């Protein structure tokens, strides 16, 4: 039987963030990962916002294998037969330090794990954790591959389906309404072609979100991120919403239909798909957060439900890194006190409350309800599309003035409904 100070389950961003922070403190730390290598089971859309976490991991970002810094934030309302796109770009997005990067997790996590290992921490891959060891109401370690591995503290960073925190009694399987599934293709394309198609220079990148017909009116949307030499293209769909109102087609076909849209097809033309992945995403926000700690155990990252959809921004990875960091800080406090029960480890929650993590979650607690407004996924894309169609259309006969065109689409009843929705959108 082996005894460690800390066992971290899962070499994703939460787990590796915790391990990195625990290094250099003279603790025996073990990271367990079920994949062939760290990152083998990890997927993002995706984009990482560095600003909130830059200072937690000093010196890490200069060498990090990030893809492109995002200089174009693009939102497309996609109707059945047309679409309207808003493309934001600004000089501040081109200035260093860049606020956000596209990222490929198998590459990034593998690199981060190497940094952790360079600091003397053991990362053991190909090892699935099967259970927690409980003693006198405390988590005292884990069972992995038939071995008992003991520790003062276990940090559960085992991802969105956190079997470990369920086994520790900290959460139940969860409602499908608090989760979405993302499916994604990585499409290989030459970087010069990417730059031309997305109007980018050098390592600049674009982040595109699509709302509407992409998900056939269900909660969710499409995404497209430019990597150095590939595109990450996919869709996200609310699991609960898709169950309540049966999806007209299968999810894999939904992705193909998205790729076939005239707005998308020219962007991926000539590219070759090199990987197809899927991953579940927590969507419930503050009200769906799991228990963050118990006796001898902390929960971080997706395992705790730490992902936040605020409409224009969809974030998870920086919350994972930050919660890993704060979990590690809490472990160091508990070690000082020589007590690993929930009341001591609970300082983790206090750290999160004082940081951007739980402040964001509290502030955006209503956003899961706001962004699941069904009008966002059919009505508004169609309304905006039809309005633009008439504004740009030159008929054979005389053309309507802008005011009549607006009045035709935005009736008093419609205006009232828009104002009502705007009030709720202001909570985003």
């Amino acid at each position: 039987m082996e005894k460690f100070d800390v066992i971290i389950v899962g070499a994703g961003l939460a787990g590796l963030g915790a391990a990195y922070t625990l290094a250099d403190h003279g603790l025996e730390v073990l990271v367990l990962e079920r994949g062939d290598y760290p990152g083998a089971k990890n997927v993002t859309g995706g984009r990482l916002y560095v600003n909130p976490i830059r200072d937690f991991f000093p010196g890490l970002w200069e060498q990090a294998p990030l893809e492109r810094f995002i200089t174009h934030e693009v939102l497309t309302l996609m109707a059945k037969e047309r679409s309207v796109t808003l493309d934001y770009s600004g000089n501040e997005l081109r200035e260093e330090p860049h606020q956000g990067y596209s990222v490929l997790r198998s590459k990034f996590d593998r690199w981060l794990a190497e940094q952790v290992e360079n600091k003397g921490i053991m990362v053991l891959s190909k090892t699935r954790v099967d259970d927690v060891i409980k003693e006198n109401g405390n988590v005292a370690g884990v069972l992995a591959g038939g071995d008992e591995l003991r520790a003062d503290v276990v940090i559960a960073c085992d991802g969105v389906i956190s079997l470990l925190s369920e086994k520790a009694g900290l959460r139940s399987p969860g409602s499908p309404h608090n989760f979405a599934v993302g499916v994604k293709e990585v499409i290989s394309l030459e970087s010069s072609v990417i730059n031309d198609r997305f109007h980018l220079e050098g390592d600049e990148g674009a982040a595109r979100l699509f709302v509407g017909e992409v998900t056939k009116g269900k909660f969710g949307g499409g995404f497209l991120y430019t990597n150095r030499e590939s595109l990450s293209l996919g869709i996200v769909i609310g699991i609960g919403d898709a169950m309540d109102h049966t999806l007209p087609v299968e999810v894999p076909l939904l992705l193909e239909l998205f790729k076939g849209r005239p707005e998308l097809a020219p962007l991926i033309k000539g590219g070759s798909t090199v990987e197809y992945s899927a991953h579940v995403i927590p969507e419930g926000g503050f009200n769906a957060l799991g228990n963050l700690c118990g006796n001898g155990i902390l929960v971080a990252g997706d395992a705790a439900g730490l992902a936040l959809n605020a409409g224009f921004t969809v974030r998870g990875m920086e919350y994972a890194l930050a919660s890993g960091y704060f979990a590690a800080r809490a472990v160091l406090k508990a070690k000082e006190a020589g007590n690993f029960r929930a009341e001591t480890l609970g300082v983790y929650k206090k750290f999160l409350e004082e940081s951007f993590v739980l402040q964001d979650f509290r502030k955006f607690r209503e956003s899961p309800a706001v962004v699941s407004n069904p009008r966002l996924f059919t009505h508004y894309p169609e309304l905006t599309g039809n309005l633009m169609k008439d504004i740009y259309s030159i008929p054979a006969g005389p053309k309507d003035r802008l005011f009549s065109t607006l009045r035709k689409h935005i009736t008093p009843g419609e205006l009232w409904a828009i104002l009502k929705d705007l009030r709720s959108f202001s909570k985003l």
Partner: protein
Amino acid sequence: MSEQMDLKVKLGLDVFKPVREPHIKIRPGMERDPRLRPALRLCPAGLYSENEKGEIALTIDGCLECGTCRLACGTEVLDWNYPEGGTGVQFRFG
């Protein structure tokens, strides 16, 4: 890329390490349970299928380990686990 890509071809692009025993199983006798139905359309790898008798079957090869079926169908009808360490899908890009 305008014509649709076959799902099997797509899954063939991924690296899978053989799983010794299926890590997700429909619990015996639950094959006709309506709670399994959402997985028919939601499984990103299209691994759930229905036969003419209305029984739902699951093929584990190609499982992306996303967890959608566990959330949509629940653990009363599915015996759900991750595959053993070092087996199953191994993403190279993620």
